[in-house]
């Protein structure tokens, strides 16, 4: 198990990592997600040994590694832009760490062969990095960092240099390799889809602190702050005040969208923010105004067709503007609503998240 306890790192006057604590289980695929400059790379570099924490402890399976030199820790890193040795072949790059470990020659050869097979680089062993494509280089970097069988593998934006299609297939491969080897992986990324796709748990960082640590699903469905709700995925935020609170029914009065009912809410102050994901909102055409009195009503302000889904913005009569995503489950669904059409808006109280303002 990796334990990070109250780690602080400052650069000059800037606190890059601020009293951060985190436990990561052996065999876990953990993602550090955050905007650039949030301290996630600094944290990763402390785990690799390129930076030493100013205070706090980092222990791996009980042993303190905070001040162990990089070349002496059982941790390997896959670098952003890969940092492959340009003067060595694919084999040479993969064998580099094994040679430093002083393994016997035949052991090195068999491990290199094993790694080459794992990342499907067969036939390219004698190539140099400049004779490989971006995707192949990425796989050499992965093989090189896995070859020493580290107890902890760090991945610094490993897929950022690949194009979208390749990135998606590589994410699946990465997840598969991690599952097969049962190694602890920590990936740093600014791409939330990537984090959600590969990771068992995601730690979202901002200003050197962990804002929320949760599974991808929990992070998306139950963000613990307004900042997280806005950072992860798309969401509608409406400010309001708690009017009544009883088990299973919290009523919030909002100036822009009337009264909204939520099934549950954390103990918050009276001033709150209501958050609803765009895909959790249902739209119905208003046939007769008289039937719609109790519902939220509004006008379609814009409509966009994205293929699998259509996105709409709805201008509520009370003033709020909501983004709504509807799946185009049938061909006919794609031309469901048109701009200017009056609609009624509804969502389940279960899908309403109440956050501190």
């Amino acid at each position, binding site marked *: 198990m990796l334990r990070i306890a109250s780690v602080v790192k400052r650069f000059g006057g800037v606190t890059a990592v601020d009293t951060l604590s985190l436990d990561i289980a052996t065999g876990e695929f953990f993602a550090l997600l955050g905007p650039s400059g949030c301290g996630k790379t600094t944290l990763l570099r402390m785990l*690799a*040994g390129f930076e030493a924490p100013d205070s706090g402890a980092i222990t791996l399976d009980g042993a303190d590694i905070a001040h162990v030199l*990089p*070349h002496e820790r059982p*941790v*390997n890193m896959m670098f952003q832009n890969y*940092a492959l040795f340009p003067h060595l072949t694919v084999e040479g790059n993969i064998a*580099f*760490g094994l040679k430093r470990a002083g393994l016997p020659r035949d052991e090195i050869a068999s491990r290199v062969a094993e790694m080459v097979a794992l990342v499907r680089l067969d036939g390219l062993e004698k190539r140099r990095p400049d004779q490989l494509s971006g995707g192949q280089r990425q796989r050499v970097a992965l093989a090189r960092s896995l070859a020493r069988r580290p107890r902890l593998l760090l991945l610094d934006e490993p897929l950022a240099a690949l194009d979208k299609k390749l990135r998606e297939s590589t994410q699946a491969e990465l997840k598969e390799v991690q599952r097969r080897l049962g190694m602890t992986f920590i990936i740093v990324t600014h791409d939330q889809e990537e984090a959600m796709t590969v990771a068992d748990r995601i730690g979202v960082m901002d200003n050197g602190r962990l804002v929320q640590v949760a599974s991808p699903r929990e992070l998306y469905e139950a963000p613990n702050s307004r900042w997280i709700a806005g950072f992860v995925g798309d969401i509608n935020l409406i400010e309001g005040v708690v009017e009544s609170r009883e088990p299973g029914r919290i009523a919030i009065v909002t100036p822009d969208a009337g009264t909204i009912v939520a099934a549950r809410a954390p103990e918050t102050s009276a001033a709150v923010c209501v958050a609803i994901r765009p895909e959790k909102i249902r739209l119905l055409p208003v046939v007769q105004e008289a039937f719609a009195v109790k519902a939220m009503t509004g006008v379609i302000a814009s409509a966009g067709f994205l293929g699998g889904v259509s996105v709409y913005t709805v201008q509520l009569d009370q003033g709020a503007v909501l983004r709504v995503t509807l799946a185009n489950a049938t061909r006919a669904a794609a031309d469901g609503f048109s701009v200017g059409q009056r609609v009624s808006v509804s969502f389940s109280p279960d899908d309403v998240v109440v956050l501190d303002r």
Partner: protein
Amino acid sequence: MSGRRIFTRPARLAAIAPYLWMALFFLVPFGFVLKIALSQTAIAQPPYIPVVNLAAGWDAFKSALGALSFDNFKLLASDDLYIFSYVRSLIVAVTSTVILLLIGYPVAYGMSRLPQRWQPIAMMLVIVPFWTSFLIRIYAWINVLQHDGLLNKLLLALGIVDKPLVWLSTDAAMYLGIVYSYFPFMILPLYATLAKMDDALLEAAADLGASKLKAFWLVTFPLSLPGVGAGLLLCFIPIVGEFVIPDLLAGSDRMMIGQTLWLEFFTNKDWPVASAIAIVLLALLLLPLLIYEKLQRRHLEAQ
């Protein structure tokens, strides 16, 4: 054949421009020197025969060609003076180039590791001496090294020696002068390759279990070899033909080939032998140049 034409006319002109340049400023003068090398010395103006006079017509030209001989080259091969000069030049050039590399590499490496804002200043410090005339700097060394010069005064004052030592007119003085003069030629190419080294490669090496020293030998040094090659040649080639520094700082008992050439040309007025010396020197230097060319091409292909 028109299908094979890949260059348009102006582009083709641009492509042959370097060859025209080479032909005009290298091959033509080389032809003159070669012709003189194959002539015989004479008390005349110019001081050799035959003189090719194109105005005298084809027959005169043919008889002039017929009078050419390899006697001067045979002389070079038979007289110890020339062989010793060549050998000494090569020994001096190899020795000083090795010293330059041994001193230059750590200095260039240190410069490349300085904080970014200090690097241009370090660079200036290497280049600034060049703002003073080369000859004046060598004369300054004579002042430092002579019998009652700065170095002996300092050693006496510090009580390290009790009578002045002989520095000037020794090989040590000459090596000092050469290393001092050619230092920037070694530093600049080395610094250029070391400064653009990606730090992430060293981190990767450390991450994969290489100590700082190992990372240097396995990553930094092999990647700096193009700079090492450039530095070695930029120093070696001109040092082989060096004339001024050995003439002013070394003893006069043994000569480098540049000095011998000077002697033949100006003192003995033997232009043909001097030309032959120059041609053999060029042939000697062509070998390292070709090796460098080959290495450089391989490096470019690897890029």
